[in-house]
């Protein structure tokens, strides 16, 4: 077995031969300190992805990489249209799990005295947690519209405003939705859950801008020190989970049909252009659009709550990013422009100013890259850089990354301890299942600042602002 090679202070290479069948090397973007936290199983997963047909350049892992299923969490890989594949293992069950950031015109000192009331009201207004169904009661027709038109549909239904759409990755609607590829089961799970936050690590958080690192870019993003922001972290709920489950079965058959050698059944895939690949892509796009509609609706209800307590205040969309998705993008490969299927599994697109996909409002600086902290720790806003295109197909990290197992967390913390500790730090928490707080204790994650420093130092995305939590509503 070949050894891992240090290429640079923040780049480690997993050479071909580390595991059998690798077609390209792996690249792990970590500092020396974070390298210690990367488990051998995670490196094996990077190597497994490197063995998939049509992979371009490297199988990559971001600094928050940790053990996943199929791809590692924090994994990025791009595949050629000719000879490449698409795999749900590179997207995950929670298709278009993502992050949305809203900026207010309120200052922390205005909101701070009413933070308890505000979090209680948000907790009431936005259904979350197990068994939660939406306030929406979407019809079957509306569900189809959400699958096909995403945020565009939500705005037409009166959730949010037109300007929101230009401040979303893909304008909140990916092309190529095929609602015919969605099973009755996925529809049954998805319909009642449209407009719900979910549980686990998903949250809605009221934050204050604690630190500005880059005044000019912060100004461009409409951020200033002491400002109140709202962050929404959720995805495509049961619809996405079921779509992934359904297509995994189909693609495991496709692997046999097309004689593809895969080291892990979660890496089930099909050759690009095959009916199985097209069907999965069309269904995945539906789930991605559902997630954008979902975050749009939640943002709308958040605005309603703010309007009740702070009449006339504004909550404008800074940006909305997907961090579990596969997309068709053009990239420079060996001096040629190629159309690639870029898989980001727990990784955020981080495009710099040279890309036309960056919204006009940010065209001269690059897209906002939103990195949520774990519960009770800071989140970061970064700005995508063109250097990311050379290093990582324009991709950055997506969060802090777990270092401690759930069972270990449950041995060390109780939900009550975690809540009390957060309260001592002035952070208010409301949760449907307090028992689940223990597993999301801040200590079970890597320090998010260290993770963000790696992408900053590599020039993938540079730091713009740090956001400190004031109140959290969770499932």
């Amino acid at each position, binding site marked *: 077995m070949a050894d891992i090679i240090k290429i640079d202070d923040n780049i480690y290479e997993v050479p071909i031969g580390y595991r059998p069948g690798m077609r390209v090397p792996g690249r792990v973007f970590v500092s020396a300190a974070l390298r210690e936290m990367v488990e051998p199983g995670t490196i094996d997963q990077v190597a497994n992805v490197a063995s998939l047909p049509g992979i371009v350049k490297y199988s990559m892992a971001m600094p928050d990489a940790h053990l996943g299923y199929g791809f590692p969490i924090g994994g990025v890989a791009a595949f050629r249209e000719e000879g490449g594949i698409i795999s749900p293992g590179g997207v995950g069950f*929670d298709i278009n799990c993502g992050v949305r950031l809203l900026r207010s015109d309120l200052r922390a000192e205005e909101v701070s005295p009413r933070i308890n009331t505000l979090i209680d009201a948000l907790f009431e207004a936005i259904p979350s947690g*197990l068994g939660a169904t939406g306030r929406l009661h979407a019809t079957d027709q509306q569900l189809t519209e959400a699958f096909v038109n995403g945020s565009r549909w939500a705005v037409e239904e009166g959730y949010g405003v037109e300007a929101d759409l230009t401040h979303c990755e893909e304008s909140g609607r990916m092309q190529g939705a095929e609602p015919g590829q969605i099973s009755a089961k996925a529809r049954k799970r998805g319909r009642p859950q449209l407009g719900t936050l979910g549980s*686990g690590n998903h949250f809605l958080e009221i934050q204050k801008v604690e630190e500005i690192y880059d005044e000019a870019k912060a100004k461009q993003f409409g951020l200033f020190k002491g400002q109140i922001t709202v962050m929404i972290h959720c995805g495509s709920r049961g619809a996405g989970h079921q779509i992934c489950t359904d297509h995994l079965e189909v693609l495991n058959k496709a692997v046999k049909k097309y004689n593809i050698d895969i080291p892990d059944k979660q890496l089930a895939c099909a050759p690009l252009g095959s009916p199985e690949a097209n069907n999965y892509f069309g269904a995945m796009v539906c789930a991605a659009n559902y997630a954008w509609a979902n975050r749009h609706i939640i943002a709308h209800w958040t605005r309603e709550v703010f309007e009740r307590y702070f009449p006339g205040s504004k909550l404008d969309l800074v940006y909305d990013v997907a961090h579990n998705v596969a997309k068709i993008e053009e990239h420079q490969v060996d001096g040629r422009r190629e159309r690639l299927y870029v898989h980001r599994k727990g990784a955020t697109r981080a495009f710099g100013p040279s890309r036309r996909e960056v919204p006009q409002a940010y065209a001269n600086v690059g897209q906002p890259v939103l990195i949520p902290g774990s519960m009770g720790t800071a989140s970061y806003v970064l700005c995508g850089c063109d250097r990311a295109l050379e290093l990582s197909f324009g991709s950055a990290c997506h969060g802090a990354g777990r270092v401690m197992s759930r069972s270990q967390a449950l041995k060390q913390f109780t939900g009550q301890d975690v809540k009390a500790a957060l309260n001592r730090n002035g952070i208010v928490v409301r949760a449907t299942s307090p028992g689940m707080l223990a597993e999301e204790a801040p200590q079970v994650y890597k320090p998010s600042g260290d993770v963000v420093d790696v992408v900053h130092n590599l020039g993938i995305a540079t730091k713009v602002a740090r956001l400190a939590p004031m109140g959290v509503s969770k499932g």
Partner: protein
Amino acid sequence: MIAFEYLEHTADIKFRAYGKTAEAMLSNAAAALFNCMVRPETIAVKETWRVELQADDLEDLAYQWLSEIVFLFETESSVFSTFSVRLEQDAASAWRLQAEIGGERIDLLRHAFANEVKAITRHKFGIKKNEVWCIQVILDV
């Protein structure tokens, strides 16, 4: 023989479930899946659900079975504590499963959730038969 055990996993939940028969193993796997969400002693059997599935091999059938339980949990807003499984293999060697699941509607006052299982992964998913049947599963939570 223990019915199931949880193994260390950083991000998700990994378990092995055992059985003297494939049926018992699948029943214990369903119990392991639910046990990590809600304590079974808090679940009363007030209703039953019937499940019928078929697949070309036992591993695919097991994957469908556990995925079906997640689907029922979500769409029926119910929690389950009894799983009675019957397996058959037909002449063309396809596997058929018939099961009866017992449980009740979710009542958040009595059912304290420790996790929510999103899906069953195929990562390192497998069945082995030595002295007893054993299935290994990693859950996405």
